[in-house]
């Protein structure tokens, strides 16, 4: 079906309430709020867009509007469909899509938290990254933080003359805080966490003798060795059985998007490193693609190859680390992860050699790369991908996969069905381990991935074991891509035109996405024609994969929750952003 066919069909189906978005540089459709539910249902059931990947919002104070932006896909592949709903800024209400696409759950909560869009019909619309009681919705354009200096960087004070006073000196409290007018801290009553605990449905069971049992609420984290950082789980238990579970996040909310909207486009590049800090090069890749779409710039061959090599090496080391940490979680304390980290260090050596940093690579530029491969690095990569990594992957497989304890803890546990995986917008290994062969490198190829022979790793049981094993599969596929790429890489330029540090970007919006190691990593950008993004949103796979976490854990024992979490493989920098 071609694009115009689709438009006609859509028009026939919805003669009213669905209009094409004709603003300069924008795409997709604008839906009337009262038609949204009907539209989304038809989209899912009649037009086969069964996967709602991203939900976010944009604030347009000049027009007095808030806009919710949705990106939907078909799991059989193809490009995205963007649709938007506009609402009044004073009283922003949009119907929630949670019944049609349950994967919208956390994302709608995020949009409520940061932008103040009320999603009517959402059963649990609480703040998700900040805490209840926080003043204001920070991503609104007129909301200013305590250390606010100016709307756009570079700040006048720093350039061309560096007259910088420390932000603390300007704040009346000497710290990064501000309070609403007439705020009296002594009269203030903390909101507490009743809302959180209220959201965990309370149970009461009666046994056969009529003895009633209340259910117990427990918290795990934010400081807990198996939560992979500052992540918190609140759960109600019946004995040792999980009745209900809610992830609590935001303990590492570092305001990426607010800071990103103040930065220039290039200044955001190092910030993307710190999203999923295990795989900075994939993050660079996604962001570069989104900006390149906006400015319409080509990338030279050699640079594309280097990008792919770096992205796949990133995937390998990320999965190694993920497997190591997962084994930690299920009790094989540190021995497997020491093996995994040993290999990871070798990949990090390559990163350090090429980009100058082990973890925060900041290597991609719009239309190319920061620098070419240094002498000897290609040989190093060759040694790794033809010899060491395949051998060590097999070795890990041999040591771990048939281990009886590992198998009995994981096989058949933490089940996520195919339908649920799609429904909850799970991405990456979590989605593919549930039997959906959806990999953006294949489904909607970007860069030069259409040139390589590789299989999309897929497994069908949807349990913890498959989510563990699929990572080994993916390492092997990545090595295949790497082997082809290092053989084919041509000589040549690594940057189209001169490197550009500051540029004007044409008006419009773009969504760049890559298959990151953790799943679909998307960057949604809106440009108002200046040198700073007007809206900068990250579709974070770690965050959205957690939507399925609660349902997956229902009925399991407490100790299995940790294994399920390990098998999702989250990184908090990306979850909380």
């Amino acid at each position, binding site marked *: 079906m071609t694009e115009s066919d689709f438009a006609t069909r859509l028009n026939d189906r919805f003669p009213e309430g669905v209009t094409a978005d004709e603003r300069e540089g924008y795409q997709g459709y604008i839906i009337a709020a009262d038609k949204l539910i009907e539209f989304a249902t038809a989209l899912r059931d009649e037009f086969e867009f069964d996967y709602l990947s991203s939900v976010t919002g944009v604030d347009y104070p000049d027009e007095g509007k808030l806009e919710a932006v949705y990106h939907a896909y078909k799991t059989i592949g193809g490009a995205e469909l963007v649709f938007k709903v506009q609402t009044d800024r004073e009283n922003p209400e949009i119907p929630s899509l949670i019944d049609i696409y349950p994967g919208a759950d956390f994302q709608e909560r995020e949009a409520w938290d940061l932008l103040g869009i009320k999603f009517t019909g959402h059963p649990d619309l609480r703040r998700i990254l900040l805490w209840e009681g926080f003043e204001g919705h920070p991503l609104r354009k007129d909301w200013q933080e*305590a250390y606010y200096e100016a709307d756009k960087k570079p700040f006048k004070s720093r350039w061309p003359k560096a007259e910088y006073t420390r932000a603390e000196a300007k704040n009346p409290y000497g710290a*990064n805080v501000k309070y609403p*007018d007439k705020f009296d801290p002594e009269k203030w009553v*903390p909101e507490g966490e009743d809302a959180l605990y209220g959201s965990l449905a309370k149970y009461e069971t009666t046994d056969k003798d009529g003895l009633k049992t209340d259910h117990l609420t427990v918290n795990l984290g934010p*400081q807990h060795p198996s939560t992979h950082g500052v992540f918190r789980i609140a759960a109600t238990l019946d004995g040792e059985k999980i009745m209900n579970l809610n992830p609590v996040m935001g303990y590492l909310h570092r305001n990426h998007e607010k800071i990103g909207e103040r930065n220039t486009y290039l200044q955001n590049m190092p910030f993307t490193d710190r999203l999923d800090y295990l795989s900075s090069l994939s993050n660079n890749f996604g962001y570069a693609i989104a900006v390149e779409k906006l400015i319409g710039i080509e990338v030279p061959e050699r640079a594309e190859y280097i990008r792919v090599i770096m992205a796949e090496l990133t995937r390998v080391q990320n999965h190694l680390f993920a497997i190591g940490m997962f084994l930690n979680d299920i009790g094989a304390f540190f021995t497997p992860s020491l093996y995994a980290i040993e290999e990871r260090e070798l990949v990090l050596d390559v990163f350090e050699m090429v980009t100058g940093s082990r973890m925060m690579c900041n290597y991609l530029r719009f239309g190319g790369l920061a620098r070419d491969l240094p002498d000897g690095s290609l040989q190093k990569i060759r040694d790794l991908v033809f010899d060491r990594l395949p051998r060590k992957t097999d070795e890990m497989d041999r040591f771990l996969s048939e281990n009886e304890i590992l198998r009995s803890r994981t096989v058949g546990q933490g089940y996520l069905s195919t339908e649920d995986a799609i429904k909850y917008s799970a991405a990456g290994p979590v989605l593919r381990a549930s039997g959906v062969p959806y990999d953006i490198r294949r489904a909607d190829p970007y860069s030069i991935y259409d040139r390589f022979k590789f299989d999309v790793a897929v497994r069908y049981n949807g349990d913890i074991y498959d989510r563990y094993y699929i990572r080994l599969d993916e390492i092997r596929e990545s090595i295949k891509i790497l082997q082809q790429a290092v053989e084919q890489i041509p000589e040549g330029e690594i940057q189209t035109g001169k490197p550009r540090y500051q540029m004007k970007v044409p008006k419009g919006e773009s969504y760049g996405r890559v298959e990151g190691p953790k799943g679909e990593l998307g960057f949604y950008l809106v440009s108002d024609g200046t040198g700073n993004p007007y809206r900068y949103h990250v579709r974070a796979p770690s965050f959205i994969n957690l939507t399925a976490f609660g349902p997956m854990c229902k009925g399991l024992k407490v100790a299995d929750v940790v294994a399920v979490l390990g098998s999702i493989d989250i990184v908090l920098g990306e979850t909380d952003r």
Partner: protein
Amino acid sequence: MEKEGINSPGYEIPEEIEGVVSITSIDRIYNWGRRSSVWPLMFGLACCAIEMIATAAGRYDFSRFGMEVMRPSPRQADLMLVSGTVTKKMAPTIVRLYNQMPEPKYVVAMGACASGGGPFKEGYNVVSGVDKLIPVDVYIPGCPPTPQALINGLIKLQEKIDGQSIKTVRWYQKGDTAAIPVPMLGPDLIYQSSIPAIKEAAQEEA
């Protein structure tokens, strides 16, 4: 026992018993014991934590300094390695963890974020450095600090321990050491110490 590790110079030891006798001061042996078994709290905040893990792993291996025993419980930890961005939402927890650690306790601020807010300093949910909350002994620059830098910082901490005297350390002084007041999450983070100032500002407006 290594001679220079523990022996205080200035005492003549007869040659016959040199191999079996050491003469030292209480401070020296007390510090030698503590500096060689600093147990960190297993507690990672952000990206820097990954470098901390790498430092604990095979290649850099900080167990060479007696630090490999990471304790998930603050009750058993001597050192809080603040490895990452301190957010406002996390601030009360960090102070509470610090208060739960028994003396002697040390804090190392690892990386730009923990030292001063780092790249995210301007963020509305970011505390500009963990020293706004708890006292810090060693700051390690870097974003993230490399494992070498981390080890260097930890050696600095050991040197600091070496310089302490059992007569003056705070945990052997009379009286209780006061716990640090836990900040609250209000419309923004509320430090207990700034409550009077907030009240004053509110009154001025009124």
